[in-house]
Structures are given as C-alpha cells and as structure tokens.
C-alpha cells in the first residue's frame, strides 16, 4: 500500500492528510488555531509558533485515522507557497525531514493548485475515477487571500482567466462583517445575519464594468462603509440584517456573473468552486442555478486542508531523495521552478 502524506501550513490552520496513490481520501486533519480571532485577523508569528507545536501531532493523527503508519507512506507532499512564509517554513521543514529520514520522494505543491486539485479527490459518492470533477472545467477560487477564476484543462496546472485587482472575496466578507460589528472570521457571521435581511434593501456596486474576467471588491466595501456612516449607529444597527444581505448579494452577484462569463468564453459546461467562500449558502444556490454541472467539494475540502495538497501531489513531478533537501518556501507569486 503506497500512501501520500501531505502537510499544509500556509496560514493559520495546521493540516495533515493521507490520500491513496489513486486519489482516495483516507484522512484529513485540520487543527484550527482559534487564538487569532481575538486579534481580528491572523498574527503570523503566533500562527508559526502554533504550527511548530502542532505539526507532528497532526501528522500522527492523520496517519492514525488512515489506519496507517509512516511505513505505508510512499510520497510526502507539502505546500511550498504562496502564504505566510514563516508559517510555510514549518510545514516545509517538517515534510522534508520526515521524507529525508526515510529516503522518500517529496512533492512541493502550490497552494492554489491544491485548491483546484481538491476536485480530483475521490470520496464516498464521488469515488468515480475522476473524483468530484475531472478536467476540463472552470474553477472559481474564493478565499480570504485569493479570488481567482481558472481554466483547468489538465490535472497538473491551470490558466488564470481573471483575479481580483484589490481585496479577495473572503477579505471583503471579513471587512464588511467588521463594519457591521461582527466577529472575525466575518464570512459565516455575515451570512447568518443576512438570513433575516432583504438583499435588495440597499444597492451596492457589483463592478460589472471591469474589463475581462477580473474582480474588484474595494468598491462594495467602501460603499458599505459610507452607508453605515450615513445611517448613523442606531439606524445602521436597526438595518444590520438588510445591510448584510445586500452586501452579500453584491459579492455573490459579482462572483456569479464572472463565472457565467467565464463559462461562456471558454465554452466549458462545468464549474467547480473552492476556497472558504465556497461555504457561502447563497453563493452555492446562485451557482447551482446556472445551466451547467457544478461541483462543490465538501466544506472541509474547500477551506485550507492538506488532502487537496496530497491530491495535487499525484500530478506533480516529485523530487527524489536527496534532491529536495535545499527546498525553500515562497511567500508570493507563482510556484518557483526549482
């Protein structure tokens, strides 16, 4: 039995997972560091300290849940970037050392390629050969750090159709939530509040006129700021649910419109979504109404996780021992070609 063991520590979740060589999910462990919520965002130094304390135990746990030991592992995979570099380095150092001690190959994985590869995992009802969705398809990735439309033609890469020019969609949710006095992370809290509100009570901009398939969420955030200010604290509180629903509607529409355009332009009839924002109910509903096949991985595979990194590793050129001993993490940009 040859298994893939993967680690992912690009932000504030310490993740390890085990996936079989043919893409079947065996275990997926995510240790969320709740400590950051009190700061209203992720504190890199705190995140890195926690990763170090948790990484080995999370790996043990992933192996245990997969009913495996390191002896069953044939490939170690790790997120190389982009992300918080100090956080990434903990995962990279850990993965390299686990692999080196056993002379195993190592697959460095790009975090975004990982999010796309979540769709290739075979789990339960989606355990067909292609996983949740097989290429070609259009993929919308929307998280706290990224908003991206990708054209996925093969298993080992993607081309970018559009991306945000300013805030990420999740970041917009978080900032909007803060303006409405909601706790971090704002996305889920804002969605909850919006349930009791009217999405058409206020008109927020959708940035339709932007060229190409890029996104912009700075405008909708600023316009919420002005609305809240104009209403004053009392009225804003009284209309909080309406504000939340209208704000959410604007973001969902912006995302959905671009998806429609991307499908039209590429002629593809399949859409996958990933990233933390894919958990958003109204977004899922809106996209499921499009006349195409929509694939949405389960929630824990949409947010940061290591199963997606293991999945991507199946299609990456793994580096044999000892080629990867000098491997470094990268904070931003596309994967550095080693």
């Amino acid at each position, binding site marked *: 039995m040859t298994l893939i063991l993967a680690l992912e520590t690009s*932000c504030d979740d310490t993740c390890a997972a085990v996936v079989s060589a043919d893409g079947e999910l065996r275990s997926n462990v995510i240790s969320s560091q709740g400590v950051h919520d009190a*700061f*209203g*965002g*992720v*504190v*890199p*130094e*705190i*995140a*890195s*300290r926690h990763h*170090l*304390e948790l*990484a*080995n*135990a999370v*790996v*043990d746990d992933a192996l245990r849940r997969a009913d495996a030991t*390191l002896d069953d592992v044939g490939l170690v995979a790790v997120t190389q970037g*982009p*992300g*918080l570099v*100090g956080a990434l*380095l*903990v995962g*990279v*150092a*850990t*993965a*390299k*050392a*686990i*692999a*080196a*001690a*056993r*002379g195993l190959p190592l697959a460095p994985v790009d975090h*975004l390629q990982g999010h796309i590869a979540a769709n290739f995992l075979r789990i339960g009802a989606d355990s067909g050969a292609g996983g949740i969705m097989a290429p070609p398809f259009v993929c919308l990735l929307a998280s706290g*750090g*990224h908003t991206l439309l990708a054209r996925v033609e093969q298993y080992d890469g993607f081309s*970018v159709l559009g*991306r*945000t020019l300013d*805030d*990420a969609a999740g*970041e917009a949710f978080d900032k909007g939530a803060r303006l409405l006095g909601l706790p971090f992370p704002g996305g889920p809290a804002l969605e909850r509040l919006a349930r009791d509100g009217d999405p058409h009570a206020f008109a927020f901009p959708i940035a339709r006129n932007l060229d190409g398939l890029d996104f912009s969420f700075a405008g909708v955030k600023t316009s919420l700021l002005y609305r809240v200010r104009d209403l004053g604290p009392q009225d804003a509180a009284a209309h909080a649910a309406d504000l939340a629903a209208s704000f959410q509607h604007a973001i969902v529409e912006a995302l959905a419109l671009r998806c429609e355009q991307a499908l039209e332009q590429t002629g593809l009839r399949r859409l996958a979504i990933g990233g933390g924002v894919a958990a958003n109910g109204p977004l899922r509903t809106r996209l499921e109404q499009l006349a195409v096949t929509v694939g949405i991985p389960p929630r824990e595979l949409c947010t940061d996780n290591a199963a997606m990194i293991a999945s991507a590793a199946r299609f990456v050129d793994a580096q044999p021992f*000892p080629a990867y*001993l*000098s*491997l*470094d*993490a990268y*904070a*931003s*940009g*596309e994967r550095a070609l080693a």
Partner: protein
Amino acid sequence: MIVLGFDTATPATAVALLDDTHPAAAAELRHEPAAGERPGHASQLLALAAQLLATTGLRFTDVDRLAVGLGPGTFTGLRIGVATARALAQSTSAELVGVSTLHALALPAESAAERAGADFGVLAVIDARRGEAFAAGWRGGRAVLEQVALAPAKLARRVAEEGGSWLAVGDGALRFRDDLERAGCTIPTDGSEQHAVSARAVCRLALEAPQGTARDLVVPDYLRPPDAVLASPPKKPSS
C-alpha cells in the same frame, strides 16, 4: 551512541555528527551567510546534515540521538531547526534532546577555562536585534546568570553586579562590545571562532542528558512574546 546535532538560532547554520566512542573526532559543517545575505537555515540545514552523514557512510536512521539548539535567537531560524529535529525524530527511532544555544555558545570557552584552571566566567551573548541581547553566564560549571533578553547597558550592569572577570563571546558580544568592555568583560577579537555557536557543543551538551525528551515538549526558547502584528493581506499571485 551517534548524535546528530544542529543549531539555527543565529544567522549561521551549524551541523555536527558525534560518535560518543570518539567524541573528540566530531565533525562539523557550517553555513555562514555573506554580509547582506539572508540566513540559509531553510536550504542548508538538512542538506548539510545529509552531507555529514554521507561522509561517514551513515543514514538518518543510524542516528541514536538528535540534538537541537532551542535558542534564544531568530524566531524563524529556531523553528526551522526545531521542526527539522522533531520531524526527524518522528520519522526515525532517534531520541530528541533540546539544549540551550547560549550554553552551547559558552561551552568551548568554559571548557578551556576549566582546563587552564582559570577563574573567569563565560558570558554568552547573542544579538537579539531591536537593540537587545540574549545572554546567559556560566562560572566554574555553574549557571550564574539566567537566560535574559536585555538592553546592552542593563546587561553590562548585571555583569558588573555579578563581579569577577568575564569572557564574553557571541555575535552579541561583538555587537555590544563597548558596553560589555566597559563593564569589565574581555572579548576575543572579531574573527575568533569563539563567537560562533558550535554544533559540536550542541552534541556534547545533549550527550549529558540521561535520556531523550518527549517530542512535543521540545519547543524553542523564544524569550520574547510574539508581536501581535496582523498579516497583511496575502499578495496576489502575478501571472
């Protein structure tokens, strides 16, 4: 017993391999970043360790004890060292022992003093940035100044209060030479080997431990709380 030891608390990456039947023959490999260059911990540590093992025909699985410098020192460097040591231990059956980087820094001078019957204390000082020093002092085999993070003037005062003669070593002793010399410390010349943390010393200190430490208890000695600075929104990838 085969001990693989390393330290990444300072900008240098130091790795040593020691066989306790020939402790004097311990081999060490180092990487020192050039002026203006970033520390090489991430790219050098495992590569140097593998190289060292290869020269003796050993593998990671032949190591009985892993020794790692716990700092204090640069946070990212410490984490790379400790993460590497913990993961090597996880993936082999080696024991894991964390040691004080300051003690490893002081050890060679301390042993020399002992051999010479000299009566000076050794003050290990690491540049802690932001105008502070990480320091600790030993005299006659005893720790007389506990690990501290202090401004150089305060450290000088502590040393003067302690009295006696002192040899100060480490990149912090060089950085704060004036303050420490004024407090009566003797400091070797800038190029002296005594200012570098020796991985051989890390191995030797680890050999003194009766047994290994539980993996999850091996954590860096940061000596400073984390700065509560929020992550700036991640950079959008460019392509």
